[in-house]
């Protein structure tokens, strides 16, 4: 991967602000960074700007001010046609799974690999591996609609990790799950993190966060609380 080796941050926000066309202010002066190989939580009430922040990382939205850098790429310099290639480095997991309900589990998980043009043999191997990792081995031919909520979430996770992206983003991954299942999912994220993947989990489930010892970014009305980490790790930025 052509990542700049010297780049220290996986995600770096510098005085980022985002105002939606209607004038609604979603983020103002947000600065933080997440190191390579780090696992962190992003929390805050609904409407605090969590979704906007994730959208800025995945280039669904673009910032009005400040600088966003992902995996060493300055988002402002990433053209529209390059966005898909940036997104291939980000595994995304959604609360409502975003699965294709009329396609099999295999087809869902294989989608990122199809897009990247892997051969069928390679796709079979990797999909089987990813499903094995999330505990859904052997359910390739099922339709997502036949699976439980927790299993559907795992299909989404398998799809996010199947092409081994360096960054994993999860938006309320445990939103609809009971505590036991939520913990299982988080353990799963820990295994990916152990393998070197940077993980950022947005959640409002504070009990869940409390049980784990990871850094937490808290958003409140579009601002980051406790942003001092940025300065502590500042020696190397992207500029």
């Amino acid at each position: 991967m052509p990542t700049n080796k010297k780049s220290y941050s996986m995600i770096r926000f510098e005085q980022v602000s985002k105002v939606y066309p209607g004038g609604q202010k979603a983020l103002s002066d947000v600065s933080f960074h997440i190191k390579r190989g780090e696992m962190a939580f992003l929390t805050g009430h609904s409407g605090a700007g969590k979704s906007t922040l994730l959208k800025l990382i995945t280039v669904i939205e673009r910032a009005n001010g400040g600088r966003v850098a992902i995996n060493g790429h300055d988002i402002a310099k990433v053209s529209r046609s390059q966005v898909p290639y940036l997104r291939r480095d980000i595994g995304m997991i959604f609360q409502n799974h975003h699965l294709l309900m009329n396609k099999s589990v295999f087809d869902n998980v294989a989608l990122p690999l199809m897009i990247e043009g892997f051969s069928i043999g390679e796709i079979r191997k990797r999909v089987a591996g990813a499903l094995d990792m999330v505990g859904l081995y052997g359910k390739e031919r099922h339709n997502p609609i036949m699976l439980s909520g927790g299993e559907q979430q795992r299909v989404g996770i398998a799809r996010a990790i199947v092409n081994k992206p360096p960054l994993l983003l999860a938006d309320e991954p445990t939103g609809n799950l009971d505590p036991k299942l939520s913990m299982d999912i988080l353990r799963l994220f820990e295994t990916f993190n152990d393998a070197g993947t940077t993980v950022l989990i947005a959640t409002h489930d504070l009990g869940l966060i409390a049980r784990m010892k990871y850094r937490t970014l808290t958003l409140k009305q579009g601002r980051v609380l406790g942003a001092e980490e940025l300065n502590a790790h500042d020696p190397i930025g992207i500029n």
Partner: protein
Amino acid sequence: MSKQPQLNRSKLPLSGRIVMFFIRHIQHAMASMGELWRNPVSSIMTMAVLGVSLSLPAALQVLVKNAETITESWNSAAEISLFIDEGRSETAIQSLITRLNVYPEISNVNYINRDQALEEFQRLSGFGEALSYLDSNPLPAVVMVTPSVKYSSPAGARELLRKLEQEPEVSFGRLDIEWLERLQAVVKLLERTVLAIAALLVLAVVLVIGNTIRLAIMNRRTEIEVMKLVGATEAFIQRPFLYTGIWYGVIGGFLAWVIINLLVWYLDSALAELLGLYGSSLQMESLTIAELGQLVLLASFLGWLGSYLSVRQHLRAIEPS
């Protein structure tokens, strides 16, 4: 660290990428064919509309083609009558005929002397009785000239006529081509009409396919959003739609061909009867294999164009949110 690292286009080596490029195209082509099979009712409706739309211009093309073969056989019927000055001797006329025979523009010369002309007139006109009251034969000698193929068109024959009138023995010449010119004008008008109607129907085909593809895009909106989220390029997303458009075109083209053959088969016996009354045994021609190829090729291009226009407009509008 001011340099932006290049975003990699693919993690595969170049050779693998080239192979996968073709494999993916074939996969997409097959997949969109499968998609059409899975929704047979709406697909067949669209294809039927395309088939009917394409069959009209193609049928008109067949009509024009057949009209051309018929008028071509009439074209060569143009003959020039040269009326010889009164008082020219038989020797002078014979020398004129010899001269005419070496004209490259002339394929055949037929001499009708005054006596023959009178005889023919008596036989054909029904004024035989009246003619016998005349003291002398009022009819001039006539040389009938058939122009060569190159000069058998109205313009060519007219040019030849002007040249022949320069001959000293010729009093004046007559070219009976007015009806031929009218016929050609009618054929030309027909051709223009065909072209205009064809253009309109071609536009209709593009619009029909564009609209069908638009609906397909709307139906697969969530799928497109997900694909964009996991890093699919626009080229990747639009490819199945473009192939769907091409398939619509190909099948619509074949359908048009079938319709035309049915039409020709239906009209042929009626036409044969009509032509039989005129003593002609022309058969109606359908489209040749080459023309079928052109039709299908054109149709698939129109399918691609329609879906491309639609995809360009609607695919971009779908963004994950």
